[in-house]
C-alpha cells in the first residue's frame, strides 16, 4: 500500500473510528494481500508510511473469500466478480487472510 493511501486511511479512521470497520481487498497475489492486511491491522511493516507503528486493528477480508462471496447478491457477483474469480488462483491469494486476522501480530 502506498504512502498516500496509508495517509488517507489514517484520516478516514480518525474521522470515523474503527467500530464495525473492516477492510475488503481485491489484490490478485498472496504477497500483496498480506502486505495490505498487515498494514491495516498492525501498522506499516516497512516503517515508511504514516501507519508505521500504528496498529489500527482492522481485520481484512478478500472479496473472493467464500464467507464474503456467500453474502453478495448473485446478480452483482456475476456482473462484477465472476470473471476475476476465473482469472485468479483464489486458494493461493486468500491463504494468508485467516492467519493474519487470527494472529496477534
Amino acid at each position, binding site marked *: 500500500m502506498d504512502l498516500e493511501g496509508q495517509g488517507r486511511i489514517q484520516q478516514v479512521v480518525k474521522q470515523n473510528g474503527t467500530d464495525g*470497520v473492516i*477492510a*475488503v481487498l*481485491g489484490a*490478485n*497475489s498472496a504477497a*500483496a494481500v498480506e502486505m495490505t492486511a498487515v498494514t491495516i491491522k498492525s501498522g506499516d511493516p516497512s516503517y515508511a508510511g504514516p501507519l508505521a507503528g500504528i496498529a489500527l486493528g482492522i481485520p481484512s477480508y478478500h472479496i473472493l473469500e467464500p*464467507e464474503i462471496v456467500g453474502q453478495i447478491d448473485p446478480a452483482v457477483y456475476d456482473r462484477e466478480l465472476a470473471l476475476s474469480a476465473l482469472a485468479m488462483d483464489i486458494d493461493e491469494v486468500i491463504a494468508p487472510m485467516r492467519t493474519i486476522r487470527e494472529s496477534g501480530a
Partner: protein
Amino acid sequence: MKLQGKRVLVIGERDGVNAPAIEACVKSAGAEILYAETLCFV
C-alpha cells in the same frame, strides 16, 4: 462475519478486483462504504 451493517474500507487492485466492483458487491450485502481506492502494483 456478517457484512450487513459493517463499515468498509475498500482496497481494490487494478490487476485483481478493482474498487468499484468491490463496492458494488459489499453494498449488495448491506455494508456501508467508508473509503475506496484501487491500488496499482507495478
